[in-house]
């Protein structure tokens, strides 16, 4: 069963958010949804680069009240 994994990396400085995403991705299964919340402005370009490299799907990337939310669907894992 695909799961939704929430990674709360708010108030963590760079590269905390990507580190937490990497840790979550290691445990994730194909089809899982990973939602990352971060406040570090560097996270936005970083998560885009990460999605491009890993070949997963970025379903949503938005910023609201200083919080960046990235929703990733795990599609590159076999």
């Amino acid at each position, binding site marked *: 069963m695909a799961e939704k994994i929430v990674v709360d990396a708010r108030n963590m400085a760079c590269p905390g958010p990507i*580190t937490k995403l990497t840790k979550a991705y290691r445990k994730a299964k194909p089809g899982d949804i990973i939602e990352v919340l971060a406040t570090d402005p560097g996270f936005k370009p970083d998560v885009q680069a990460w999605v491009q490299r890993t070949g997963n799907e970025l379903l949503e990337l938005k910023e609201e009240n200083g919080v960046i939310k990235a929703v990733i669907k795990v599609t590159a894992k076999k």
Partner: protein
Amino acid sequence: MAQKKQVLVLGAGAGGLIAGNYLAANGYRVTIVEKNDYHLFQPGMLWIAFRGHDPERYMRRVTELVKPGVELVKGVVTEINLAERLVKLSDGREFSYEYLVVALGAAYDYDAVSGNRELLEKYGDFFSGAEHARRLWQAFSSMKEGTLVIAAADPGYKCPPAPHKAAFLAAETLRERGLLGKVKVVLAVPFVHEYSSENIARIVAPKLREAGIEVKTMFTVESIDVEKKKLYSLEGEELGFDVATVIPVHRGPLDKVEPETAVDEDGFFKVDKHTLRIEGYDDAYAVGDCNNTPTSKTGVTAHLGGEVVAERIMGYNAVFTGRTNCPLITDGEALFVISDYEHPPVPVRFSKFKRLLEDMFIAMYWPSLRDPEKWSPLFRAYFEATQPKILAKLGW
């Protein structure tokens, strides 16, 4: 005057020794439990593995590093029960305490990534002791051609610049031997940029290029095929090697902690990031790599945390700021990655003077562990003068 309290310190690494010796200098009854006979200056492993230094240069007997009056117990801690104020050792001995300082460092999980243990057996590494560092030197120094890969299994490892230093030192050795180019040095980092912090990546990237080091970003090792000589990444790529070393996944030091809620999912002690007090207890602290503070795991944080904990036990309102001072060494130069909880790493320059400063820090290492009360003012002056909030304006 009432007799001063009894403090049980677990671990004689930098954090444990500084806290224990500092408290002993102020009249506290201190017991330190340590499993090893020798204390290893951990950055020394880089020099053993990539410059062929003699391991003895970076080791001292623990008995030489504790103040007279400190009771040193040799043993392996297996269990902590915070509610009952009880610590158990593998041989069945039990210790109670009035204050507890956990300074057991991080443990390594070589089974988290398949092939990592086999790779360690074959090529050694620069994280898990002088013997393994020596083995890596033997593998590396016998290379005449091919590819050396330095990589990590997880972004949350000790000393963020360690693999970069490894690459710089390896390239230095190869250049001296006229082998750079014939032997290719590949640094694979689990970060989006060449260094964990983008500010520092911008400064380090050209230096890596200059040194002839190839960098692979976003490469977090997921599995290793030692037979086929290939590393596979979580991000979906692969790297071939002739000799490789992979920094293992880190976790907390103990399997048994009561209550379980005192540690996070990776086994690191949950502490208040400013007081280093273990959540829910006012008589127990965790210092250095074994805690979950959102700062880098480095000797500097263990050192400063050790002082903060000692001072808090003495009744002062000392605060841990999350300050880092990670030295990044290249051929003849260095820079310090300086940050704290409130400030991400500030842009700094490489210089020969900072390399001199780093060499001085290394020389001061042993006496500063044994006599923190004497050396502390000097370190304090340095840390105050180089606060990130000051350097962010000045540059350094």
